[in-house]
């Protein structure tokens, strides 16, 4: 399609695997199944987002449950060569294909849970699957922040983070969030934090269970079909039962944060993060992504660092400027900076004024 840069991150998705018990014991045994997946990120101009998304759905057959998900988010992006990137985009439309007309799901939200230490994500993923929220995608990263200010004591605090990505209906978010907090104990300090970013539209994989299938259609297939028929997920709004209204009211969500992402060469990562922290950011989570696409510098490695920072809205601009200063010092760089509105919802948390969004990213 001529997308300028495609950033790939390795991860795994967790599904339930239904199968028989060993030794012929009757019943269905539900286990957790991990499959390796790739998470692709790229940006396209907002007005062309839908057609790009449709053509990806068409090419990767994403309308079939189990093949993967796609969603788009509005972002503000700064970097070299972006105008050129816009011109290079060419999409072959196959409008005759009925798939091209499939409506996309609206009112979704991307929930990101950053958990301390490896192994913690599995519990959260299991809860998410049991609640039928969606298919959790788990990636890994390293945290920087408080840990680096502790001196040698930092060795006692794991820098490895597990990041759980969940895309779910927006209206479900509050209730699900509450349940997740309780189940995984995120309301205790040091366990991690949760935030969400708004999703413009998308098409989600609903195949939460694989393996033995009893009926003509699985629950996931039925849900996917109704989602498509109703062009949305409103119909499956969860009704909160058992949660005292008192607690519900205490759940505060701050709209005062935004998410800042830096795609940079690995060796410049520390420099950027350092600059951001000096300008007021509290910490960053870095993951490793591989860059492909025609904008990649052939003399450099394909590996890039993606540093994600949650910053209070008021600080977004100074931090952004500090990052641009560092980039300027390196001259012609292909490093990129993205800013996304990100209402935070948890104990520890970061956020900005609503930023105009000339770009749209499709994850």
């Amino acid at each position, binding site marked *: 399609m001529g997308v300028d840069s495609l950033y790939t991150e*390795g*991860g*795994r998705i967790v*599904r339930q*695997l239904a199968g028989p018990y060993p030794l012929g014991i009757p019943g269905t045994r539900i286990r957790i*199944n*991990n*499959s*390796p997946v790739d998470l692709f990120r790229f940006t396209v101009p907002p007005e062309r987002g839908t057609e790009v998304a449709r053509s990806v759905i068409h090419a990767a057959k994403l*309308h*079939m*449950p*189990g*093949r993967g998900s796609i969603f788009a988010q509005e972002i503000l992006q700064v970097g070299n060569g972006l105008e050129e990137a816009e011109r290079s985009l060419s999409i072959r439309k196959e409008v005759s294909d009925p798939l091209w007309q499939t409506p996309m799901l609206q009112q979704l939200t991307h929930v990101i849970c950053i958990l301390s230490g*490896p192994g913690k*994500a*599995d519990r959260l993923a299991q809860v998410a699957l049991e609640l039928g929220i969606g298919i959790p995608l*788990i*990636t*890994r990263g390293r945290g920087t922040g*408080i840990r680096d*200010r*502790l*001196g*040698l*004591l*930092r*060795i*006692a*605090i794991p820098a*490895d983070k*597990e990041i759980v990505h969940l895309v779910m209906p927006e209206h479900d978010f509050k209730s699900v969030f509450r349940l997740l907090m309780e189940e995984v104990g995120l309301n205790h300090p040091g366990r991690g934090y949760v935030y969400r970013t708004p999703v413009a539209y998308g098409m989600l994989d609903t*195949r939460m269970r*694989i*393996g033995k*299938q009893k009926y003509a*259609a699985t629950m996931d*297939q039925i849900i*996917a*079909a109704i989602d498509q028929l109703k062009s949305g997920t409103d119909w499956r709004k969860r009704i909160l039962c058992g949660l005292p209204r008192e607690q519900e009211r205490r759940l505060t969500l701050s709209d005062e944060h935004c998410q800042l992402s830096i795609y940079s060469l*690995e*060796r410049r990562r*520390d420099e950027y993060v350092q600059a951001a*922290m*000096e300008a007021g950011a509290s910490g960053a989570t870095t993951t*490793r*992504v*591989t860059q492909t696409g025609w904008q990649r510098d*052939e*003399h*450099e*490695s*394909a*590996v890039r660092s993606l540093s994600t920072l949650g910053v209070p809205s008021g600080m977004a601009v100074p931090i952004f400027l500090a990052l641009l200063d560092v980039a300027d010092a390196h001259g012609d760089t292909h490093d990129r900076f993205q800013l996304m509105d990100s209402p935070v919802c948890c104990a520890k948390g970061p956020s900005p004024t609503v930023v105009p969004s000339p770009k749209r990213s499709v994850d």
Partner: protein
Amino acid sequence: MKVHPAIPLRSVISTLAGYARIRIVEQAKLVAFIVVYLVAFQVLVLRVPLSNALSIGGGILMAIMGLALFLEGLLLALMPLGEKVGLKLPVRTSIVMICAFSLLLGFGSTLAEPAISALRVAGATVTAWDAPLLFLLLERHTDGLVLSIGAGVGIAVLFGMIRFYYGITIRPFVMIIIPSLLAASVYMSMDANLSTILGLAWDAGAVTTGAVTVPLVLALGIGVSRAAPRGKGSRGGFGVIMLASAFPVLGVLVFGYSVRNQVPEPVSEAVFFSKAHRAQSKKLFTTEEALLRHAFTRGSEIGRRACFADDAGYRGKLKKYAENPEAFQGMLGDMTISTWLARQASESERMVITQTAPRLAEPLPDSQLSQMLLREGQLALRAVLPLSALLLIVLMVFLRDRPKYLDETLLGLAFTLVGMTLLTSGIHMGLAQLGTEVGAKLPIAFKTDDQFVDYVRIEKFDPQVVSEAIDADGDTHSFFYLKQGDGYLRVDYLPENFNLNQGTYQHFITRPPMFGPNLTILGIGLVLLFAFGMGFGSTLAEPALNALGITVEEMTVGTITRGQILVVVSIGVGLGLLVGVGRIMYDIPLVWLMVPPYLAAMVFTVLCDEDFVAIAWDCGGVTTGPVTVPLVLAMGLSVGRELNAPDGFGILALASVFPILSLLVYGYQKQRQQMASLEGVAEP
């Protein structure tokens, strides 16, 4: 930068306590299996009481602490350092520099972590007449052997880095190197002399990649792979360990081939020690004394007799030794007289020596804790310091960079050093001792005749104490009672053990076979079961494998967990040991056992996913480390000695190939499951 937050002391202590607890408990769990297994085997199956329980317990505690510290040190200092150097090398230097550095690192790591001591232990029963070439390499050309192994590792690291730099897949390397090695082995197995070094060569490949080298090379590879323009990106980094296990095999084979003309052909023991053959035999020994020592410490009575012109000369020499035990001990060298009596001496020789020789005080084993710590500490220093110094110098001088946190790196290095010292000392004091104890007693499980244990010489024996008994057929049997401590032991009286002139009686204490004279199948089964369990348990605790497992889990984002790697690899090592011990027991040529699993592994190499292939082949080289090697060798040698196996080689090599195969099979299985679950996806 924000100010260092003031942290209350109590929080600091509780944070550190939690940090230490997690790591120690983790290692304790991994070591628990092998400890419980060995103790249970000894006490419940072999029914031998546990001696030295206190020192063994202390050793095990030390090993656990050592493992925790060592692994943490690797993760804090050596691995980040290796990765950082790997990340900077392709950016700041050229491929030529990377090659030079890799060669140096590979070669240096072999000198720093000498595997040669383990190889010499495995070759402790090698005899100069059965395997002259092997003997020459192990005893005379030790330096040449070390250099050829080092060159192999150096070339391997070099090829590995070139592979990462240019993003070449592992498959062609596997498909070219392994068949070449197998073909060379098959060719050499047809020559009587060359075939003897095959076990040494393959074992050398297995042991060279030590606990410090593996994580270091792994991290370096990951760095280069990420930073090189054509590297494989975030999933590369595996595959060097496999090369570092294969090239030393080649090195040893080539070296052995080049010196093959310096040795005589294998001959029988009697011929080897005969005067007529002396000129040939002297090619392997510097002095007559060394030759005689070899006859005594590794040969049988036939060989020793052959050393002398006639029988009288031999008897006279033996008598002289019996009267002068110090001289005898001096001639035996490292072997004690009682060990010689138990292992090498024939019945008649035993009679001569025990009749007159006053008991020599056994030299106490060097078990002083402080001395051992000092010795192991020096070895650890040698293994860790030069390599980390090389990395630090390259990073700071040539690449003009520094570790992100120098304090963390230094602390990590200290952890690695202390950890390695505690680990190896603990292994010697605890696990290896336990393993040796069980291993030494293991042969009674399949032995068919009585085993000599010790002897008692009764001075002033009065034949009056001998009583007679009669059996149902009317045959009479003589016996007497021997007072031992508070109890009385009934002893069968054998007239040939009574020396009328001196008035002494020699009572030989023997242990009857465990399952009676004929029931050896059960005994063999028991030994094989033991071998499997020991391989499984000791591999679980192997620190380099742990480090590899952590890396794999990180690189695959938890799709393959450390636990899965540990279990699958440990099962592979268990199987490898089972086959290895089987080989010793039935004297099967090593080639027959090496070729089929390697061929199978190559088939799976084609079928499996590229990333997984590299991981699987790496695991083969990682499995034999500081925990496994002493335990495995102890067992292999005691079984081999009992069966008069020519050497204890091959076990480690088999313990390397089977984990590769087990992991590849596991990966293939997982891959198929994955495909099957995707195939279940239907059009809605």
